[in-house]
């Protein structure tokens, strides 16, 4: 803080009460239901809005003061990083592909969530929650901007960072993120808070913004790390907002429990289905390694979420239905996701590779029960094919889950040799799902998902059943991606040769000696 702290005449509690409560009045020349048309149709009952309190007791003046301070610190780091050409000081140019995924998948979802939150903040009848949600909306807009600025340093020197918004709308591998954001946007205000603040932020985002970001710092990327940590300081507030709102709803009316539990089941699973990319970034894209996805899951999801639900049990809540399966997959998720990305290596806007021997050994050590048995032999097979000049590319169009839109690559709980498929008939059509949980989400709201835009269907439709082999690869051209530069193997790519020609990674190598 560069400003001197002054003792205030009112306590934090008094300031918070004065600036966030009793701001509301009963409207007269229009009915309250017309002014707030969205906060009752979901079926949530609120009897006393004054009971909602932000545990941080953050008021608007303090909010802008601290956010301003965070921005000043962050942009000082980003500028210093650029002025010192630190983009060449990262461990290895392969690492930059993780930044591409953040820009393509994470930044746009933040932008979309900011819009949903701004709408939610406008449409809640309770003043204190409205203030907190509007802050969360501003936070998410800030995160989108920060992540974009932090990545722009790299955009000057590396490929694949130039077309994130177009990719977000069109690319098949980003469809889970786009579909998640659209699902949130078309939900009611209470479901959105349970979705974003509780299920997404308080249960799962630490994996990306804490252990992954610390790993990125370990790889010399202070630009993205500063943006990530700065953003997660807001997310700590969002977590509390989510948890307090869930507790608040459960104490307002007994009828709220069934709705809240159903939303938590749904949104935990939808949020978990965004994790394959994060798992893969943690295990495969951080060239200097620190913590595995499995360890990250255990420390930042499994332990705190179980502690949280032990606390929430007093309100009648239980862990989400997908919990056991999600925990079971920690042995497999990153390896299965990397396999999909490698197989479609020319149809995604990042480069892929086979990890080097010391990296494979590290994965063995971190996953003694799964890697050597299931995943290392497959990577060895790919490496062998590549050495013979027959690099494996998956030429099929991925079959996508109707709800989460991930390709069907997830295996059954307890059996990593069996891909999970589920299907449901609805109005004479068959719909396909990656899991029981996505199947249930569909069955609860079929009208919402039956017309989902699936990339594979759209591509087939556009070509009228013609040649399918290169449809995915070609589809990225519409997002201004160029095959051979932005896609394909890392080895021999422009990113690889440029980084090497420009002396990249030397500092890190010298530091290791």
């Amino acid at each position, binding site marked *: 803080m560069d400003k001197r*702290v002054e003792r205030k005449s009112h*306590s934090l*509690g008094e300031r918070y009460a004065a600036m966030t409560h009793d701001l509301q009045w009963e409207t007269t020349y229009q009915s309250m239901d017309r002014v707030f048309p969205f906060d009752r149709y979901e079926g949530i009952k609120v009897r006393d809005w004054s009971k909602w309190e932000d545990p*941080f*007791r953050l008021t608007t003046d*303090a909010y802008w003061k601290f956010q301003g301070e965070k921005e000043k610190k962050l942009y000082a780091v980003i500028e210093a990083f650029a002025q010192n050409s630190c983009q060449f000081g990262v461990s290895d140019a392969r690492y930059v592909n993780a930044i591409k995924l953040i820009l393509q998948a994470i930044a746009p979802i933040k932008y979309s969530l900011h819009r949903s939150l701004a709408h939610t903040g406008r449409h809640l009848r309770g003043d204190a929650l409205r203030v907190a949600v509007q802050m969360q909306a501003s936070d998410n807009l800030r995160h989108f901007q920060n992540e974009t600025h932090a990545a722009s340093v790299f955009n000057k020197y590396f490929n694949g960072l130039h077309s994130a918004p177009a990719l977000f709308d069109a690319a098949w591998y980003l469809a889970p993120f786009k579909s998640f954001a659209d699902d949130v946007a078309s939900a009611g205000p209470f479901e959105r808070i349970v979705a974003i603040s509780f299920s997404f932020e308080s249960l799962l985002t630490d994996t990306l913004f804490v252990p992954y970001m*610390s790993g990125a710092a370990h790889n010399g990327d202070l630009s993205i790390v500063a943006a990530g940590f700065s953003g997660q300081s807001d997310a*700590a507030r969002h977590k509390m907002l989510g948890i307090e709102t869930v507790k608040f709803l459960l104490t307002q009316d007994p009828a709220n429990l069934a709705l809240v539990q159903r939303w938590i089941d749904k949104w935990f699973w939808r949020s978990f289905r965004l994790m394959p990319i994060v798992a893969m970034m943690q295990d495969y894209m951080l060239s200097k390694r620190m913590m595995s996805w499995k360890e990250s899951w255990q420390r930042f999801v499994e332990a705190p979420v179980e502690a949280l639900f*032990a606390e929430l049990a007093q309100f009648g809540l239980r862990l989400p239905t997908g919990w056991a399966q999600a925990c079971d997959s920690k042995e497999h998720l990153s390896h299965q996701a990397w396999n999909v990305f490698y197989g479609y290596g020319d149809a995604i806007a990042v480069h892929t590779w086979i990890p080097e021997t010391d990296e494979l050994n590290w994965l063995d050590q971190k996953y003694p029960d799964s890697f050597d048995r299931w995943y290392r032999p497959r990577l060895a097979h790919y490496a062998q094919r590549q050495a013979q000049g027959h690099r494996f590319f998956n030429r099929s169009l991925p079959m996508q889950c109707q709800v989460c839109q991930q390709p069907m690559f997830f295996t059954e709980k307890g059996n990593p040799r069996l891909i999970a498929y589920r299907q449901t008939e609805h109005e004479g059509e068959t719909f396909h799902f990656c899991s029981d949980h996505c199947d249930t989400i569909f069955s609860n709201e079929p009208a919402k998902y039956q017309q989902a835009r699936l990339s594979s269907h759209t591509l087939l439709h556009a070509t009228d059943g013609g040649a399918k082999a290169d449809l995915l690869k070609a589809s990225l051209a519409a997002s201004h991606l160029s095959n051979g530069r932005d896609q394909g193997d890392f080895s021999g790519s422009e990113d690889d040769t440029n980084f090497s020609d420009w002396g990249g990674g030397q500092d890190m190598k010298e530091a290791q000696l």
Partner: protein
Amino acid sequence: MSNVFIAFQANEESRPVVDAIVADNPEAQVVYSPGLVKIDAPGKLVIRRETIEEQTGRPYDLQQLQINLVTLSGNLDEDDDTFTLSWKH
């Protein structure tokens, strides 16, 4: 009893806060990783304004914690003098 935790960006502004936490919470475990400092404690963790002020010799506003905060876990209760994370169960 489950752990509560709090993590900060590892920098000079966080140092007196971490020192204050260690002084006030004998069971707290401090773990450093690149860029980050995370403190775990069984069941409860208290951050006291006075202890931070003793470390730095100048007034401190507990809301300043937010600037270098990265994440936390536990029920939060904050007033002018203390910032408390706890699990009841």
